[in-house]
C-alpha cells in the first residue's frame, strides 16, 4: 500500500488557481523532491496534504485512508504526518526539550519522562545534546531547524513533509540541516520535500518532480530530470537555478 496518493488535486485562492490537477504517489521509504519556481504550487501542495488548506477537488489517500473525506478527524490525520517549515516555527515560550516532546506528550499520550528521554537521545544524536534546556531564540537558525526536524520525527510519522527547510538559512548552515535529512533517508523515512537545493535533490531524491503553474510538468529520477529534461520549462528553470 502506498503511503501517500494524491489524486487529481485542485486548489484555488479566490481567482488564483494554484493546483490544477496534481497526481503523485509515494511508496514507503520514498524520498520525493518537489522543484519549481516560487508560486508553482509546491508549498500549497504540502499544505493540502497536511490538511492546513482544504482542497477544492480530488482525493488525498494516506496509507489507504481517504483523508480528504470531510468526516475525517483532521487532528488525528495531522498527528500521523510530520511537518517542518521554512521559518522553523518553534514555540518561543518553550524550552527545546518541551518543544520537541509536545506532540508526544499531549497528542500521543506518551509518558512525559519516556518522551523526554527519547527526545534527549535524538537531540544528542543530531549534535544538540547541550541545548535541551535552552529557549529557541538562543539557538542559531541551523540549530533551530534541526530542533524543528526532531520535533517532527519524534512521534515516528508515516510521512514527513519538508517545506523549503533550508531557504531561511544562510549558506553556512544549510549543510548541517541537509546532513540530518540524509540521515532520515538512511533510516527509511518517507519524505516529500520542496527545495531549491538542486545538488541535494540530485543526491538524495528517489524521484524529482518539477512543478510549473500548478501542474506536475515532469517527474523522474534525478538523472532524468537534471541531465535530460524533456520539457522546455524544466530546461529553462534548471538553467536559471544552476547558473547564477
Amino acid at each position, binding site marked *: 500500500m502506498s503511503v501517500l496518493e494524491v489524486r487529481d488535486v485542485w486548489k484555488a485562492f479566490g481567482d488564483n488557481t494554484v493546483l490544477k490537477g496534481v497526481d503523485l504517489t509515494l511508496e514507503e521509504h520514498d524520498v520525493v523532491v518537489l522543484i519549481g519556481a516560487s508560486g508553482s504550487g509546491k508549498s500549497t501542495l504540502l499544505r493540502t496534504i497536511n490538511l492546513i488548506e482544504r482542497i477544492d477537488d480530488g482525493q488525498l489517500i494516506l496509507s489507504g485512508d481517504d483523508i480528504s473525506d470531510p468526516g475525517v478527524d483532521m487532528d488525528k490525520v495531522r*498527528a500521523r504526518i510530520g511537518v517542518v517549515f521554512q521559518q522553523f516555527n518553534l514555540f518561543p515560550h518553550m524550552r527545546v526539550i518541551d518543544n520537541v516532546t509536545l506532540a508526544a506528550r499531549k497528542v500521543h499520550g506518551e509518558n512525559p519522562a519516556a518522551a523526554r528521554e527519547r527526545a534527549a537521545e535524538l537531540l544528542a544524536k543530531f549534535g544538540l545534546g547541550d541545548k535541551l534546556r535552552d529557549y529557541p531564540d538562543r539557538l542559531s537558525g541551523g540549530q533551530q531547524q534541526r530542533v524543528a526536524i526532531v520535533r517532527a520525527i519524534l512521534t515516528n510519522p508515516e510521512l514527513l513533509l519538508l517545506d523549503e527547510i533550508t531557504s531561511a538559512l544562510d549558506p553556512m548552515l544549510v549543510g548541517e540541516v541537509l546532513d540530518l535529512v540524509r540521515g532520515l533517508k538512511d533510516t527509511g523515512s518517507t519524505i516529500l520535500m520542496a527545495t531549491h537545493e538542486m545538488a541535494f535533490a540530485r543526491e538524495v531524491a528517489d524521484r524529482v518532480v518539477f512543478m510549473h503553474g500548478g501542474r506536475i510538468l515532469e517527474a523522474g529520477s534525478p538523472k532524468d530530470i537534471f541531465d535530460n529534461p524533456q520539457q522546455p520549462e524544466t530546461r529553462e528553470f534548471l538553467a536559471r537555478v544552476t547558473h547564477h
Partner: protein
Amino acid sequence: MSDGTPTAHEPSLLELERRAYRKRSTWRSVGIAAGSTLIFATVATLLVVNTPGWEAVKESFFNWEIGKESFPDILKGLWLNIQALFFAGIGVAIFGTTLAIVRSLRGPVFFPLRMLATIYVDLFRGVPVLIVLYLVGFGIPALGIFPPLSAAVWGTIAIGLCYSAYVAEVLRAGMEAVNPSQRVAARSLGLTHGKTLRMVVIPQGVRKVIPALMNDFVSMQKDVGLISVLGAVDAIRAAQIDAATTYNFTPYVVAAMLFIAISLPLTRLTDYVAARMNKREQIGGVV
C-alpha cells in the same frame, strides 16, 4: 560594547572622547532635570500657599491631629478593599480568560456562545462602573433568590464583572497578536484547537499584554474603593464616617494616601516590566 566578550579590546581615543562627551551630556541632563523640578515645585508651592483660602483648606484637608486619629479606622477599612481586590482579581483572571477564549472560538456551533460573550463585553465596557455597582448591589439581592450577602461581596462581584470585560479584550488582543504560523505549527503536530489555544496561543498572547494587564490591575486597585457606595465599610466609607463626625476632610486625604501606597509598588513594577520587554524586543537601542 565589550560586555561578555573575553577578548580585551582597548577603546580607541575616538571612542574615549565619545564616552566623555556622553558622560558630560548625561550630567548636564541630570542637572537640568533637577533644576527645573526644584523651580517648578517652589513655584507651585508658593502659588498654593499664597491663595486667599489656603489657611482654611489646610485646616480642613491637612489636619495632622484628625488624620492621626482617623488612620486606624481607615486602615481597617483598607483591609476590606484588599480582600475585595484579591477575590475580584481571581474572579477576573478566570472569567476574563473564559470570555476571551469564547470570543476566539470558531465554528458555527459556538455562534450563540460567541455572540453572548461579545454582547457581554460590549455592555460592560460601555456602562460606568458606578452604575454596575448599583444594579448588582441593589438589584440582584432584591430578586430574593440569593442568600443575604454583605454589600462588600456584591461590590466585589460588580467590580469583577466590569474588569472581566476589560481584561477579556486585552487578552483577545494579545492572542490575535500571536503569529498565525504558531497556530499552524501546533495544529500540524496534531494538537486540537483547544490544546493549541491553551499551550501555544494563550501563553504567548498573555506575555505580549502583561503590561496592559498590570495596568488594569492597578486601575482595579483603586476602583475597589467604589464598593463604599453600597455601604460596605471600606477605607473610603471609614473616611466618610470620620469626616462626618469631625466636619473635616483630612480622613479622605488619609484614605487617598493609603490607596497610593498600595498601588505604587505595582505601578513601578508595571513600568519596569514594560521597559524590560521593550528592551528585549527592540533591536534599535538608540531610538
